């Protein structure tokens, strides 16, 4: 173990530079924030992930945000275990009817100000599961959504881009 730890000290970091923030995402988030409680969050957001019916593909890529290449926490973004500690809900999947109440309750348990980021094509409109007897539809059919990150699943860099757009806007919003 000592050898592995030592190598980590002398080798260069794997972490890659931050992606530029997508203009479209900035515009979407900016519009959303204009209507929410404006408060400086000190460039730090706590995120609660909610799988509302996904195939687990989006979760894999959200997990990857924590690896050495993307290193999410350097931006002040971190995943928390409870919605009561969260500023942002990162919601994946078409919302299934069996998860609808759990998503609503999670949203209600999250203190204001809060933002909802819908991750993946299914989270926008239900994707290929739209129209099923067991599916409500996209995330916005159940809770208000501030930002969509498209993709099936979106690569970690795209999710990061979306979260950074949110962070930029949240930090610069006037109190």
């Amino acid at each position, binding site marked *: 173990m000592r050898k592995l730890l030592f190598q980590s000290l002398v080798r260069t970091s794997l972490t890659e530079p931050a992606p530029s923030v997508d203009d479209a995402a900035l515009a979407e988030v900016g519009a959303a924030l204009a209507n929410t409680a404006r408060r400086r969050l000190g460039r730090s957001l706590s995120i609660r992930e909610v799988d509302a019916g996904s195939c687990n593909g989006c979760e894999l890529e959200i997990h990857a945000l924590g690896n050495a290449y993307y290193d999410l926490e350097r931006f002040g973004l971190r995943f928390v275990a409870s919605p009561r500690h969260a500023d942002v809900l990162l919601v994946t999947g078409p919302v299934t009817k069996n998860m609808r109440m759990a998503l609503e309750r999670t949203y209600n348990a999250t203190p204001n100000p809060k933002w909802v980021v819908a991750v993946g094509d299914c989270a926008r409109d239900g994707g290929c599961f739209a129209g099923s007897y067991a*599916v409500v539809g996209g995330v916005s059919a159940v809770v208000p959504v501030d930002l969509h990150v498209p993709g099936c699943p979106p*690569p970690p860099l795209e999710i990061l881009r979306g979260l950074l757009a949110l962070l930029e806007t949240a930090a610069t919003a006037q109190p």
Partner: protein
Amino acid sequence: MAGLNQLLRKGEIASNHRPWPRAVVTTELWHEAVAGLAGGQWHLLGLWGEPGRVHMALRDESDETIAVMTLDCERRRYPSVAQHHPPALRLERAVRDLFGLEPVGLPDPRGWLDHGNWDVRQPLAATPERAPIDKAYAFLPAEGDGLHQIPVGPVHAGIIEPGHFRFTANGETVVRLEQRFGYVHKGIEGLMMGASLEAAGKLAARTSGDSTVAYGLAFARAVEAALGIDAPPRAIWLRALMAELERIANHLGDFGAICNDASFALMQAHCAVLREKTLRAAQAAFGHRLMRDRIVPGGVAAELDGGGVSAIRTLIADIKALFPALVELYDNTASLQDRTVTTGTVKPHLARQYAPGGYVGRACGRAFDARKNFPYAPYDRLAFEVPVLDAGDVNARVWIRIREIEQSLALIAQLLEAMPQGPLRIDLPQASQTCEGMSLVEGFRGDILAWLRLDAGGGIARCHLRDPSWFQWPLLEAAIEDNIVADFPLCNKSFNCSYSGHDL
């Protein structure tokens, strides 16, 4: 008792069902088959419904045959398999929820996938009923002094799929765990009925995200079996290449995550880097990090060029250079072994009864791998071993993954070495009549069964995909008994069952 094929011949053999036979049987033969299951002579591979009939796939270990039995359900009732053979329990509850077929004698009257939130009852029956079922759900009782319950989920603390775990504990010790699933039921089987091959293939590839290659492969092979065709050689080899990359990526992720659940974050950090390298190689080689929608009926939808080959060769070299140190670290860290050895042990008699696939089965003495037992191309021409251990604990499941990563690395080297040239895809013939196909494919988690019927127009009449988790989840309930609550994440991650693949 007669062999499975002998038994099947007493029924009415269905035409156009490939590659294994299917027969419509009488109630007497159904009972005989259930007795064979209960007696341990055969293994249950799957049980699924259709409006008015139920199908059961069985495996005879003695001569490696697979057969499907179909029973027409008079007045929508059939004799329960689960009353004699518990592994069928959840499958029968699911079939009842979806098709309204009543398993007579089933010891559990509760719903499984249906939580009372759909607008209809029995949505896939010929005539669904309007009124939803009652939302109330009674968990099994546990009685005794000083017991308390801990409800967990469906929204968990980690970034994982939703499901509910109801623990009954005495102090720190788990007395009973009861799982409740169905939260991510999306109605995949319903959406597939009447879907085009393309739409159904997309749904299959989104059944369980971590196994998107394996599901794509299982679906494509079942379609090809139904149509009686084979994909071109190069496509078959590229499929195997993707399947082994997927296996490595998932096993690496699990290895790190299991250690992380024992608070050994260093392993997670290193494994996550190797996993990321694997996904990036997949992106370079096949244009998608998870290689989703790259396998299609008739072949593959992505060519592997020189750049892709060198990306994969670099990946193999990287893993070979870095992985042994991690294995050594795992083996030599006493505090980590203290958490994994003798934790979450699956008992051998349950492993025989439930016949779980993948690392869950192979970690407790079950030498089954669809690539070996029912070898499909190109695995019949490749050299690899199926690692098997007997201990059945978290540690054994970790070691099976380690050995399988090594085997998959060797397989990829062989695949790249002898990759045939030629076309990637053939046009599918138009099905002139109804035909049925099935396949058994080894995903990273275990064997995935795909069964489907194509209608004369070439669309999907019915498709059922059976995730390996169906026979693994119940064993987790048993494995956690007498362990401490704090070891549950460790046990759960070492099983890493699918929620979405199970809930469909």
